């Protein structure tokens, strides 16, 4: 049984294709996490500021991305926006745009939550030392906020990695899609392929996500000591 799967993987360039699919998944996730985090930090700072109008628009943006499923956002951008603007954008770029916007929205709320959770007297004692507005953020607020938002941010990142599996729906060949293609090709001769192939994909996702949660644990432990 297992032999047949090993045979399938050894066939032609199947393993190479699967790893290629994994690379697509990792690439979309990584770029989106980085862009989303930067966007989220900026929007989070705005959302914890005193500017009511700006805060309202950030909130609106956040809620739109929360309420509408990511799959629908992918369709809106891939089919809707491109048709509306008459431009041609490939699936992977669309995925990166949508996931970055989603990550930014979710991240902004995490950043905002971390900032407003800091005790008010931290700000006052910083000001009493003569720190400027930026000094206050740089030395007092951001370092403390980062420690508080880390668990939530890592959680979001792993969610983003997992949700990239939706990109199949806009024609991007990620690791899951390659797996399906291999299964379809081999299922007649080796019916158990699907179990082992999806098992392998499970392990591949684990390989991407596990270092993230490990990193978060390590940083938390470092700041705890």
């Amino acid at each position: 049984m297992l032999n047949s799967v090993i045979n399938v993987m050894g066939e032609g360039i199947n393993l190479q294709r699967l790893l290629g699919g994994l690379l697509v998944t990792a690439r979309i996730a990584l770029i989106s996490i980085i862009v989303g985090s930067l966007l989220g930090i900026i929007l989070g700072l705005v959302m914890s500021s005193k500017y009511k109008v700006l805060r309202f628009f950030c909130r609106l943006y956040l809620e739109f991305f929360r309420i509408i499923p990511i799959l629908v956002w992918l369709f809106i951008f891939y089919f809707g926006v491109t048709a509306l603007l008459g431009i041609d954008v490939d699936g992977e770029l669309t995925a990166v745009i949508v996931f970055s916007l989603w990550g930014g929205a979710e991240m902004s709320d995490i950043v905002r939550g971390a900032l407003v959770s800091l005790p008010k007297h931290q700000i006052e004692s910083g000001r009493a030392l003569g720190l400027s507005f930026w000094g206050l953020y740089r030395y007092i607020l951001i370092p403390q906020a980062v420690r508080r938002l880390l668990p939530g941010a890592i959680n979001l990142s792993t969610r983003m990695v997992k949700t990239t599996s939706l990109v199949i729906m806009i024609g991007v060949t990620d690791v899951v899609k390659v797996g399906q293609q291999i299964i379809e090709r081999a299922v007649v001769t080796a019916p158990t392929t699907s179990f082992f192939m999806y098992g392998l994909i499970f392990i591949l996702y684990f390989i991407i996500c596990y270092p993230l949660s490990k990193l978060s644990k390590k940083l938390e432990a470092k700041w705890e000591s």
Partner: protein
Amino acid sequence: MINNEKNQVLLEIKNLHKEFDGTTVLGDISLNIHKGEVIVVLGPSGCGKSTLLRCLNGLESIQGGDILFGGKSLTSKNVQWQDIRQHIGMVFQNYDLFPHMTVMENVLLGPVKVQKREKSEALLQAEQLLDRVGLLDRKDSYPRQLSGGQKQRIAIVRALCMNPEIMLFDEVTAALDPEMVREVLDVILSLAKQGMTMVIVTHEMGFAQAVADHIVFIDGGKICEVTKPDVFFAHPETERAKQFLNIFQF
């Protein structure tokens, strides 16, 4: 302290008026604080003592009157609070050390990042100050590893390391366990002996009597009495002050 230097007015409060949402919390406060003088502000809870202190370094805005620091008005439009605050040290009731920094990083933040002083020079001063409050051996500890009393002594050192001309203490022992109050008050007392100008808000009556050059009694946002401590505690002039002092006697 030389006498004529002591007579120099460092901080002049003129008809200060402060409101929160239309409610007057401080009305017509006038007070001169001379160089080297220790003022203890007493009064019932909610009388505006803390608010008065916070007005003095710009943490609260004021709606009327003026505050002169070293002869310069702090209410003019172009006042740079970031500069002023480097000369006015403040210690709060809450343990307000920055939890993500060691004791030494807490103390050096102001001198190095705000005042842009040489780190080696500031470090030397910080070590001397920490030694003076008996906490030099804790310089690499984090605030969570310290007791409340130790944290407050560090907070005092942090303010002192900026070389302020005046120190403001806002009920710094109010949140402490009783057995830790003494170690903090001793530090303030030794500062007073060295001639530091201070404005202290406290509920420790014995300490107030020991440390103060003048007691300022505030009630309902107004100054009721400004007297020498022995006079105030023995023969308070106003009925309100008598009632207030009675609370502290069993």
